[in-house]
């Protein structure tokens, strides 16, 4: 007997050791349950992080726009409205009023991590006989690249934007037969044009985006689009991506701007992410429940099998509390040991699946992240589940009438 182990611990371990086969089966059951939880959690978290990274590194999390222009009916007197059809006016591309002040206000918000003013307009990209309608974004590279990771998507050239440079989507480059170093004539509807040099080609992994995207320096775009000193959007990132919508609503309420969060502009994607999270949680809960019921069932059988032992223990002066702890400990130990094997099994399955499952382009389906936190949390959860599952059998054992127990 180990001198540093208490009575309850020694008895619990001996009871588990004596019922070897029973213990082995329930530990395997717990291990499988824990492995499923570890595998699913790590894989789905990786997949989700991958999806979110792809979405959120190619677009701002919050975008501030000039408010819609609206026509107001004439009011004749208080409470009276003129009976007239009010048509919605056409929306001219206009600058956000006093944008430097708004930008500074945004930078002062603690949750905001980056702010970048941008001007966006439709232009024609012309090279020789070929021309394509594209969306030209005039950006300040230093701040904008913190929000949209353009450098990560550059597949040729470099993410450099001086006043004479342009970065375009790879599909657009293919359509125009252009590559890095070539000149591109950018023309706007008003007839103004400017010749820019292609410094980089980007691939966002989306054909539509690759056909339409063009980046130029902010001042170059402002001059081309005839809006000197103006910006059409202020792009932002925040610390907590899931708080983006709440922050956007707060900004809109306090400023004369329209604030769109990624949650609003990607409603379907966000719903899919949330649905996946919910189904993942549900699966984890049900697996944990089945593990808990497994432990409880084994321990209830054990209490019945050991009723004479419990009777003897009680007769020799063991308290109800000690008997309770002996069975609670068995549940906790089963959960803990099962979680260790389960974590190892889940990690092995995860490493194997990460190596086997690939995307169409051969890149990894999900990043392999084996966080220590996940394993510690799972072990704690399994131990707590074991303890919780053991409560009913332990109470039953503690309340066993020693006379009845000894008689069997």
């Amino acid at each position: 007997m180990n001198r540093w182990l208490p009575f309850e611990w020694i008895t619990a371990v001996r009871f588990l050791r004596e019922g070897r086969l029973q213990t082995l089966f329930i530990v395997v059951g717990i291990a499988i349950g824990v492995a499923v939880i570890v595998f699913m959690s790590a894989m789905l978290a990786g997949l989700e992080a991958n999806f979110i990274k792809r979405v959120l590194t190619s677009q701002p999390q919050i975008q501030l726009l000039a408010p819609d222009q609206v026509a107001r009916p004439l009011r004749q007197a208080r409470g009276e409205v003129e009976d007239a059809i009010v048509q919605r006016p056409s929306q001219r591309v206009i600058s956000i009023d006093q944008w430097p002040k708004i930008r500074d206000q945004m930078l002062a918000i603690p949750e905001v991590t980056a702010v970048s003013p941008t001007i966006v307009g439709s232009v024609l990209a012309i090279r020789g006989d070929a021309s394509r309608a594209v969306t030209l974004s005039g950006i300040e590279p230093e701040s904008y690249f913190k929000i949209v990771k353009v450098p990560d998507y550059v597949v040729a050239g470099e993410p450099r934007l001086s006043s004479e440079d342009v970065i375009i989507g790879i599909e657009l480059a293919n359509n125009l037969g252009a590559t890095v170093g070539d000149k591109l004539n950018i023309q706007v509807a008003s007839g103004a044009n400017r010749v820019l040099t292609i410094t980089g080609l980007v691939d966002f992994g989306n054909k539509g985006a690759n056909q339409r995207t063009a980046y130029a320096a902010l001042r170059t775009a402002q001059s081309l689009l005839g809006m000197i000193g103006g910006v059409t959007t202020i792009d932002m990132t925040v610390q907590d991506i899931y708080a983006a919508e709440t922050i956007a609503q707060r900004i809109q309420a306090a400023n004369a701007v329209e604030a769109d969060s990624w949650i609003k502009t990607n409603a379907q994607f966000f719903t899919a992410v949330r649905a996946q999270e919910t189904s993942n949680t549900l699966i984890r809960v049900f697996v944990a429940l089945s593990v808990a019921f497994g432990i409880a069932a084994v321990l209830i059988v054990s209490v019945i099998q050991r009723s004479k032992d419990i009777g003897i223990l009680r007769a020799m002066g063991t308290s109800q509390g000690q008997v309770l702890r002996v069975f609670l400990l068995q549940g906790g130990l089963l959960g803990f040991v099962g979680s260790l094997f389960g974590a190892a099994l889940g990690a092995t399955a995860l490493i194997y699946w990460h190596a086997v499952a690939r995307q169409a382009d051969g890149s990894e389906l999900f990043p392999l992240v084996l966080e220590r936190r996940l394993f510690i949390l799972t072990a704690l959860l399994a131990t707590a589940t074991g303890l919780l599952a053991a409560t009913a059998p332990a109470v039953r054992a503690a309340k066993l009438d020693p006379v009845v127990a000894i008689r069997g």
Partner: protein
Amino acid sequence: MADEILRLENVCKAYNVGLPTETEVLHDIDLSLNHGEFLALMGPSGSGKSTLLNIVGLLDRPTSGRLIIKGQDTAALGDADVTHLRGHTIGFVFQYHLLISAFTAKENVMMPMLADRGFPSAEIEARAGRLLAQVGLQKFADNLANNMSGGQQQRVAVARALAMSPDLVLADEPTGNLDTKSADSVFELMREVNRDSGNSFLLVTHNLDLARRCDRIIEVVDGRIRS
């Protein structure tokens, strides 16, 4: 009175109290046991001997009457106090050995001390060794309970009952499941312990020969003490 270890006054025990099936199995039992006395409790099956032993052993509570152990009335004691009194004052030997099969002979003897102190110690281990030597089973100290004969298991049970140096040992037909030779040997062991250590013994038995070798015989018939 001062030398009494146990006193029962008008003890009654009924089951299903208040129900139409209420049955009284013990009626107005008066009994006392002195320090160092070896008492035999006899009676036919179903006469209430085991119920009486369970009440004396604080495993069961009387419906009415007083149970006084070492001068302390047990009626007002809560479960924790009863458990403590039982652990420190009473040792049990059951008919079917009832050792805990997950433990060795020595560990079984250590269990009452372990439950009381919380942690094993060299002192507990040494005492268990001495008790096993006293019952002649030192060689079997590391044997699991199931790997011993009935007589050997019962000797271990006697050693375990003595682990906490109890004032009173209750033995419920300890020789009932043994052959004559083993039964005699276990009885002699208990008698020897009684003589050497001065523990009181309350022995339930059907064996008249053994009962005659006790200090006193009490007969229970239909829930009443006859002699």
